């Protein structure tokens, strides 16, 4: 394993002060200079003096309750707590005096008198701050006789002790043992300050004070707890402990790596014992997450060792045969022979690849290189096609780059957050926590979403405006916002004159000022009261630093690209671009969807978003790869499937993506796959797509390989191998073996060599090396000669394309319309505990929170259809039908229903249509006209599908 630089991971006790004014003081005779507002405890820690403490930790504000961190200050009375006392110029602090020693020992005696002394069998043995502090203060004796305790199950006369509370094991990942609690409040404060859920409290008072989740009768599971793990991490004792630590023991080493779930890209310490992963702990120097995590990254890694994982390559002649386990060599031979034969028979263009947004940049780069340099066509696409391809198009057209403009730290300075078609509380939880923290400090939230999502209101904040629009009317709303800004002259003329093209602005102004775009005019269309729209527009334009965060609710529409352009226009109109606290930020879905787009996964673009038709770009790669590159763009995923049905596309290498479940119109996808002659699936599990595959390459998890992921803020984070691949090879090695079986002759021995090739060929990555990432922790592209340290903020002095471009955004209603047969609009989304198609999270304990997809329906719509809460209902569209259970709720408006797509049993995408974005083909998942009716159980399609899946997943017994 390679050595890398680990920044100081010590606990400084209180958060860092951001003041620019410096103060010098003396601690134990040493001079120290720190920012004003720093606590004495932190100042001491800066020079290596650890003042004993229990209730302080540097992720949360000082509390001053444990009375262990007392110090003496010359010329001041008493013994103030060093955590709550800020530094002052010239003071002389003593952290260790006779008096302090005696006081601390007295305090520890009281703590220990009500604590079980079962250290040797305690899960926190060796990792317990109470234990450490008893040692630090020299506790040798406890004079108090523990008559009343919280930890004995029975009192001295054998009666049950009413003060003893049993363990709460309701959460699948951690345990709450009240008998070990010292009521330091760290968990409660972490839940409030770090996570922002406020699920915990101290119930009772005095001797009866207990940490408690939710209301009186709640457990951790039934409370508001979202299982982010912040409380567990904050707990100084064994009171809140990961069950994995209880099962395994304490870890002995840790490796810093990057979470493989969403586009936030949190840094974690993978804490190991031997090659067993004991726990994942968010890394406090991670620049995306700043020490925070969510239930998925923190706990839901069990899929990596799940029994469903396939560890041997498998092949079969037809998809009706059972799988046959074979050696790697045989699988490669089989796959290469088939692919070559297909290309010989049907031509060069008859095969292609789908790159994975879950794999590393290096792996993605190799897969697109496989099709361009080995298959010799441009038939490569990626799941970004079905999520953020309109972002690429829209931001590329207006600003000149297809990526978010800010880093996540920027949210700390935003005054107005406009969240459109995104539910960060469920899909990007760590970012949501950071946003909520800012909202609690007084920033305002404008939410544009058909549904009253978890973001609409929460502990200590409520959205200033919730524009609950009808699905499919984003463009009308965004244009109406611009109409208000333009007609009420709230735009920033200076910014527009200096940074944008004034003539284009004139044209755009003429367009939006038309009364037909006014909030009043579109009210009938969008269902949003005009006054709300006007209020929101005024707030966005005049409320200070305004930042836009958007998600798939913007892009997955027939006018996805138009909405992205409209969003870009809003930011340009108001000058909210190019500094901290503002910007346009797509919340990317997958851990490396940004990276997979950067790496040239799209059929028309070589790495770095450069069109394949440009000869000078092709020349770079032709020189590096030694082959001629096809100048014609290749097929997009929907085109590949159409071509397959037509009979001209016959072979597919699909890495780490489950197109059958995730892509729209499942029946069409199934028909396309079934028509192919060689489908190679490279995945951890026999996913739904694998039901139609002929070759299965087992994949490796993110724990088993080196590489990099690029998150939504363009941050290139290191992924480090913490254990050997269970099936023998990292995914990039498998792709290389397959390419070589096809005759490529690649010779990479480490992903860093692939990154060298990327840097050499791609200007925005020119300065990226593994050494630089190791040294800096992470790098935000563009990273090149102009920005050797990377680029946290884009478009600071001017847009990448030169002048910002205003483009008209005419609203065109989608062809998917409600009518008498299909009167309701279905929109889809995610839930916190499950991830995307659920291939990973369904194989973890996260299913306790969400074990099936549920249809949300408004009470009015339910009543007219005779549907009660919990009933099975049939959900039918023009494309197909499925059944699932209904939940009656007013989170959705009348006329709108909502569900998630995490479970293959439901296959919500059987219902979605093949309408798509006009510019990029991104499917219109978010709007489908449907009808709902009571049902008795699974639909015919679901039963047929299950039967086919069971049949297709058979693996022949070894002979």
């Amino acid at each position: 394993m390679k050595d890398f630089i680990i920044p100081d991971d010590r606990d400084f006790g209180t958060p860092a002060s951001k003041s620019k004014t410096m103060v010098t003081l003396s601690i134990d005779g040493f001079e120290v200079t720190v920012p004003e507002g720093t606590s004495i405890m932190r100042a001491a820690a800066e020079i290596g003096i650890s003042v004993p403490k229990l209730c302080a930790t540097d992720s949360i504000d000082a509390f001053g309750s444990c009375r262990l961190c007392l110090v003496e200050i010359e010329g001041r009375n008493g013994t103030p707590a060093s955590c709550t006392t800020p530094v002052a110029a010239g003071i002389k602090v003593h952290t260790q005096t006779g008096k302090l020693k005696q006081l601390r020992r007295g305090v520890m005696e009281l703590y220990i008198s009500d604590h079980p002394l079962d250290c040797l069998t305690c899960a926190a043995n060796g990792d317990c701050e109470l234990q450490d502090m008893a040692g630090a203060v020299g506790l040798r004796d406890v004079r108090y006789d523990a008559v009343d305790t919280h930890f004995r199950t029975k009192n001295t006369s054998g009666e049950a002790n009413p003060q003893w509370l049993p363990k709460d094991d309701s959460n699948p990942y951690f345990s709450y043992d009240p008998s070990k609690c010292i009521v330091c409040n760290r968990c409660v404060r972490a839940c409030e300050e770090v996570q922002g859920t406020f699920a915990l409290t101290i119930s009772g008072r005095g001797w009866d004070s207990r940490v408690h989740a939710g209301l009186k009768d709640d457990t951790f599971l039934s409370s508001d707890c979202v299982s982010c793990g912040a409380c567990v991490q904050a707990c100084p004792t064994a009171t809140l402990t990961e069950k994995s630590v209880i099962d395994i023991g304490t870890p002995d080493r840790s490796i810093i790596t990057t979470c493989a779930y969403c586009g936030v890209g949190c840094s974690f310490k993978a804490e190991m014992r031997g090659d067993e992963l004991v726990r994942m702990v968010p890394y406090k120097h991670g620049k995306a997450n700043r020490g925070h995590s969510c239930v998925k990254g923190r706990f839901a890694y069990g899929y990596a060792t799940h029994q469903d994982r396939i560890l041997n390559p498998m092949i079969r002649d037809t998809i009706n045969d059972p799988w046959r386990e074979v050696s790697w060599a045989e699988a490669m031979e089989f796959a290469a022979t088939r692919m070559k034969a297909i290309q010989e028979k049907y031509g060069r263009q008859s095969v292609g690849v789908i790159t994975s947004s879950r794999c590393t940049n290096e792996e993605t780069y190799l897969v697109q290189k496989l099709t361009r340099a080995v298959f010799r066509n441009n038939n490569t696409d990626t799941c970004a096609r079905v999520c953020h391809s309109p972002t690429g198009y829209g931001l590329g057209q207006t600003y000149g780059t297809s990526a978010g403009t800010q880093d996540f730290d920027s949210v700390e300075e935003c005054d107005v957050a406009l969240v459109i078609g995104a539910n960060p509380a469920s899909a990007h939880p760590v970012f949501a926590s950071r946003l909520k923290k800012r909202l609690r400090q007084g920033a305002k939230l404008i939410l544009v979403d058909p549904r009253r999502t978890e973001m609409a209101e929460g502990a200590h904040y409520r959205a200033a405006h919730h524009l609950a629009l009808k699905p499919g009317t984003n463009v009308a709303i965004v244009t109406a916002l611009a109409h208000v800004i333009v007609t009420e002259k709230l735009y920033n003329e200076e910014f527009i004159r200096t940074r944008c093209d004034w003539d284009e602005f004139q044209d755009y102004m003429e367009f939006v000022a038309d009364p037909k775009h006014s909030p009043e005019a579109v009210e009938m269309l969008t269902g949003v009261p005009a006054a709300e729209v006007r209020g929101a527009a005024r707030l966005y334009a005049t409320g200070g630093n305004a930042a836009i965060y958007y998600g798939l609710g913007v892009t997955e529409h027939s006018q996805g690209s138009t909405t992205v352009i409209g969003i870009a226009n809003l930011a340009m109109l108001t000058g909210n671009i190019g500094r901290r606290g503002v910007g346009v930020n797509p919340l990317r879905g997958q851990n490396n969807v940004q990276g997979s787009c950067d790496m040239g996964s799209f059929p028309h673009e070589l790495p770095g978003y450069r069109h394949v038709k440009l000869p000078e770009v092709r020349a770079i790669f032709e020189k590096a790869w030694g082959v001629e590159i096809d100048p014609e763009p290749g097929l997009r995923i929907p085109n590949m499937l159409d071509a397959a049905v037509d009979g001209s596309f016959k072979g597919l290498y699909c890495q780490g993506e489950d197109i059958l479940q995730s892509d729209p119109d499942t029946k069409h996808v199934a028909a396309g796959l079934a028509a192919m002659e060689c489908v190679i699936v490279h995945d951890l599990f026999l996913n739904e797509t694998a039901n139609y595959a002929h070759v299965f390459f087992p994949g490796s998890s993110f724990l088993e390989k080196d590489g990099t992921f690029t998150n939504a803020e363009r941050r290139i984070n290191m992924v480090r191998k913490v254990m050997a691949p269970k099936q023998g090879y990292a995914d990039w090695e498998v792709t290389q073996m397959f390419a070589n079986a096809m005759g490529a002759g690649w010779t990479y021995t480490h992903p860093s060599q692939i990154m060298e090739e990327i840097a050499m060929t791609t200007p925005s990555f020119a300065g990226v090396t593994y050494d630089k990432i190791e040294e800096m922790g992470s790098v935000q592209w563009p990273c090149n000669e102009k920005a050797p340290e990377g680029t946290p903020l884009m478009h600071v002095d001017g847009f990448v394309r030169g002048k910002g471009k205003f483009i008209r955004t005419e609203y065109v209603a989608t062809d998917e319309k409600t009518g008498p047969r299909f009167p309701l609009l279905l929109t889809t989304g995610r839930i916190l505990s499950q991830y995307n198609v659920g291939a990973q999270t369904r194989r973890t304990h996260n299913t306790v929170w969400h074990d099936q997809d549920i249809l949300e329906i408004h009470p009015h719509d339910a009543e007219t259809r005779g549907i009660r809460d919990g009933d099975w209902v049939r959900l039918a569209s023009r494309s197909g039908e499925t059944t699932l259970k209904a939940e009656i709720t007013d989170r959705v408006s009348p006329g709108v229903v909502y569900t998630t797509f995490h479970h293959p049993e439901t296959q919500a995408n059987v219902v979605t249509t093949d309408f798509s974005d006009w510019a990029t083909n991104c499917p219109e998942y978010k709007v489908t006209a449907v009808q709902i009716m009571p049902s008795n159980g699974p639909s015919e399609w679901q039963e047929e599908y299950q039967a086919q899946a069971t049949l297709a997943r058979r693996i022949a017994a070894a002979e």
Partner: protein
Amino acid sequence: MPLDESAVLSRVNEILAEHNGMEGPLLPILHAIQESFGHVPQAALPVIAQHLTLSRAEVHGVMSFYHDFREQPAGRHVLKLCRAEACQSMGADRMAEHAQRRFGIEWHETTKDGAVTLEPVFCLGLCACAPAAMVDGRLVGRLDEARLDALAEELR
């Protein structure tokens, strides 16, 4: 008789509306609810939490901090006996035992006929007249067995 939940919620919503715009409204709201129902029904807490953009845990934390907010209705009369130092030195423990025996209940319990709820209290500020008690908000000083018995008769 258990309260009808929809009736509770509609009264709670009225109370919430009465406190609109008030700064630091949680305690006044809890007092008003207790005034209305004689206790604070658990069903009211999530409604209060949502209205005030607080979490359910926070409301529970506040309510459980104050012993005077009841989860269950009390008896027709509430007898509070002081348990603080001055009263203890003047025989409060003896008074407590006497009261518990007389009514046949422990602390925080209500007599079977629903007449009296017995509660400890820590200092009524009546130390000069210790041991002290409070009956339905009325202070009683210089308690002894005879006076307690008289009180008990009065409370029947």
